[in-house]
């Protein structure tokens, strides 16, 4: 069955082509069937391929399918080759499966939108690009998918383009990720220069042979690739585009945050893990970026009032956890958290979209409330998603993945207590803002009347995702609790096992601390937002707290910083250059010519007498010069 692999990306692409070329002539029902059906079909295909891959694992550990040679220039000949191993299997499963659920949900969510076919065309292209990215056998093909993802994010964030704000958000996302992409392209040049190939398996076998452990070229390459990952995955310092990317429709946010786009950076680092292992410094930087990002984004999420922005910051924060795990060498834990995060974040975004639509496009959480009994399905699914996000112990999937990362942040060879502490603090804050969101939206008194209830198309994907948010964690249980390692066993075919420091066997204490931080966070939010809301008001009277609140609310002032440091100087230079500075040089040439001509033009008087005088004087001068010299 593995040779059907090429159909997995081709189906969404075919869906895109049909919808883009003939979308206007197809009825809305068929648009939905083609759009959602193509991705669903490839999800089913992935399931079949996955089962055959797992039951009959290929001897080499991977399966690759060469479709054709892309181009051939001297010894540079990248193929269009699909490459399937355990890592890409996990990714294509998440992309197609969650992508399909999001597409089905969108069929209901976007039902009244006039650009129905454009929406599905872009979504299909998005899924196709992401599949290409994770299935690519060489970095050039990966880069094609990488750029395709960037393009689709632009198209979908600015989907409601009539509002200039959305267009601005789309451009911001596109340009900021482009900064990372440029660094990554340079990284690819370095890799090609060093190895003479861009094929990923070749690079991974050649790198440890050609480069020594800790070589500076390895660090440079790793950092350039990391910059690409940081841009796409919205990590520090390129994280500012993600909160604004909420301008798109909710399913788009779900797709960007859960299945595609932001996880591309995680995939890239996991895929190129050998290069990162060669450079301990680069790996340390990955961990530090992850820790700093999860910390900063957590505090920002705490202050937002727009429900989607809370979720956006929580995504940044959760991907920070993944980067932290990658940085400390807990490769499988990062991918595990990626998968669990994809389930619950897709769920949360879709449920938030349903809430927003039910409340007449109200984004402000403080104007929601009391939805617990009015929208029971949404409430229960949202609760499950929130529990997973807050890592509620034992019953939620998020607990198993996040606990693993917390443990490795200290116990693995690359880990240290500071990273662990920040991660623990992040978990505490996550619990606070998640509970805050739950309380504000579902408890309390109703502030906005609900319009209409979400239909079956929207609720069924939510229930499926809620199921996975609860139970997907059980495929990987901690060492001291069941010790069931189905997921990491699979991934260890590709990714190295995490090396623990000597003498680390007190995992239970760490789990208890993680448990404590979750419950502590929930309790704090419960007190401040449910039990005694007047305490918040009291806190807000303090100037310091208010300033801190505004600082966090603006995302730690990063937008302002970039505005002053980069945007304003460039705008200033552009304004100066509006009249074309370089052109001044050529204008100077013409000016000299014109003024010379004007100063001499009085001699053209038309008076014959003066002309003859001139002739005579000239003759006299020439003659006298000849006599004298």
């Amino acid at each position, binding site marked *: 069955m593995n040779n059907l692999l090429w159909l997995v990306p081709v189906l969404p692409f075919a869906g895109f082509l049909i919808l883009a070329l003939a979308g206007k002539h197809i009825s809305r029902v068929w648009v939905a069937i083609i759009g959602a059906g193509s991705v669903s079909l490839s999800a089913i295909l992935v399931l079949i391929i996955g089962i055959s891959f797992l039951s009959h694992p290929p001897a080499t550990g991977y399966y690759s399918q060469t479709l054709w040679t892309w181009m051939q220039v001297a010894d540079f000949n990248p193929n269009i080759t699909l490459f399937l191993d355990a890592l890409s299997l996990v990714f294509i499963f998440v992309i197609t499966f969650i992508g399909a659920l999001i597409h089905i949900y969108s069929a209901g969510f976007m039902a009244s939108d006039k650009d129905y076919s454009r929406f599905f065309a872009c979504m299909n292209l998005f899924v196709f690009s992401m599949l290409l990215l994770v299935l690519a056998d060489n970095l050039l093909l990966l880069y094609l998918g990488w750029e395709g993802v960037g393009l689709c994010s632009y198209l979908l964030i600015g989907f409601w383009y009539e509002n200039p704000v959305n267009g601005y958000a789309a451009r911001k996302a596109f340009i900021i990720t482009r900064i990372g992409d440029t660094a990554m392209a340079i990284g690819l040049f370095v890799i090609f220069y060093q190895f003479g190939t861009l094929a990923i398996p070749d690079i991974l076998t050649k790198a440890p042979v050609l480069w020594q452990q800790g070589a500076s070229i390895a660090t440079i390459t790793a950092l350039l690739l990391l910059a690409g990952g940081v841009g796409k995955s919205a990590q520090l310092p390129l994280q500012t585009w993600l909160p604004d990317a909420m301008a798109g429709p909710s399913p788009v946010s779900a797709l960007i945050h859960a299945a595609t786009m932001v996880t591309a950076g995680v995939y890239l680092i996991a895929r190129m893990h050998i290069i990162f292992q060669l450079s301990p410094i680069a790996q340390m930087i990955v961990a530090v970026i992850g820790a700093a990002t999860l910390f900063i984004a957590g505090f920002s999420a705490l202050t937002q009032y727009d429900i989607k922005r809370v979720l956006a910051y929580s995504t940044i924060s959760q991907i920070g956890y993944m980067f932290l795990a990658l940085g400390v060498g807990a490769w499988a834990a990062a991918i595990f958290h990626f998968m669990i995060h994809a389930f619950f974040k897709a769920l949360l975004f879709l449920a938030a979209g349903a809430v927003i639509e039910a409340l007449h496009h109200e984004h402000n959480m403080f104007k929601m409330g009391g939805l617990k009994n009015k929208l029971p399905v949404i409430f229960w699914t949202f609760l499950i998603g929130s529990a997973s996000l807050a890592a509620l112990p034992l019953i939620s999937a998020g607990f198993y993945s996040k606990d693993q990362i917390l443990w490795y942040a200290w116990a693995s060879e690359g880990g240290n207590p500071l990273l662990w502490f920040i991660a623990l603090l992040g978990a505490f804050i996550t619990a606070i803002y998640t509970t805050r969101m739950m309380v504000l939206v579902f408890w309390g008194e109703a502030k906005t009347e609900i319009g209409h209830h979400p239909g079956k198309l929207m609720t069924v994907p939510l229930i499926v995702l809620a199921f996975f948010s609860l139970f997907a964690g059980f495929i990987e249980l901690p060492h001291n609790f069941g010790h069931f390692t189905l997921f990491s066993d699979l991934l260890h075919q590709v990714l190295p096992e995490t090396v623990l420091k000597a003498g680390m066997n007190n995992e239970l204490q760490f789990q208890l601390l993680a448990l404590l931080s979750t419950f502590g966070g929930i309790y704090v939010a419960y007190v401040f937002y449910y039990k005694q809301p007047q305490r918040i008001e009291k806190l807000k009277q303090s100037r310091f707290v208010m300033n801190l609140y505004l600082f966090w609310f603006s995302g730690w002032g990063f937008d302002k910083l970039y505005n002053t440091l980069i945007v304003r100087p460039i705008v200033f230079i552009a304004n100066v250059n509006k009249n074309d500075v370089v052109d001044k040089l050529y204008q100077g040439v013409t000016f000299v010519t014109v003024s010379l001509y004007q100063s001499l033009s009085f001699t053209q008087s038309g*008076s014959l007498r003066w002309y003859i005088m001139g002739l005579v004087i000239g003759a006299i001068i020439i003659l006298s010069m000849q006599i004298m010299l």
Partner: protein
Amino acid sequence: MKSSTEIVMLLAGLLFVLGVAGVIIRKNIIFMLLSVEVMLNASGLAFVAAGSRWAQPDGQVMFIFILAMAAAEVSIGLALILQIYHQHKSLDIDKLKEMKG
């Protein structure tokens, strides 16, 4: 006592300067034409004198050329002057200038 050649050359130079002065000073175009003829003949005289000094025929050959050219010049010049008079009813060179510089 200077040689006769030098005296003739001085005379030619004097005549040339007279001609130049005439062209510059005169207002009437016909007189300017006359002055140009004087200059031509001054240079012709210089050629003849130089030819006799070196006992070569070249100087006289040049003078024949100058005579032929002067004849052509006068015929064209007079024709132009007639045209100018028809158009402007004046032969004053200062009134004829149209360029303002």
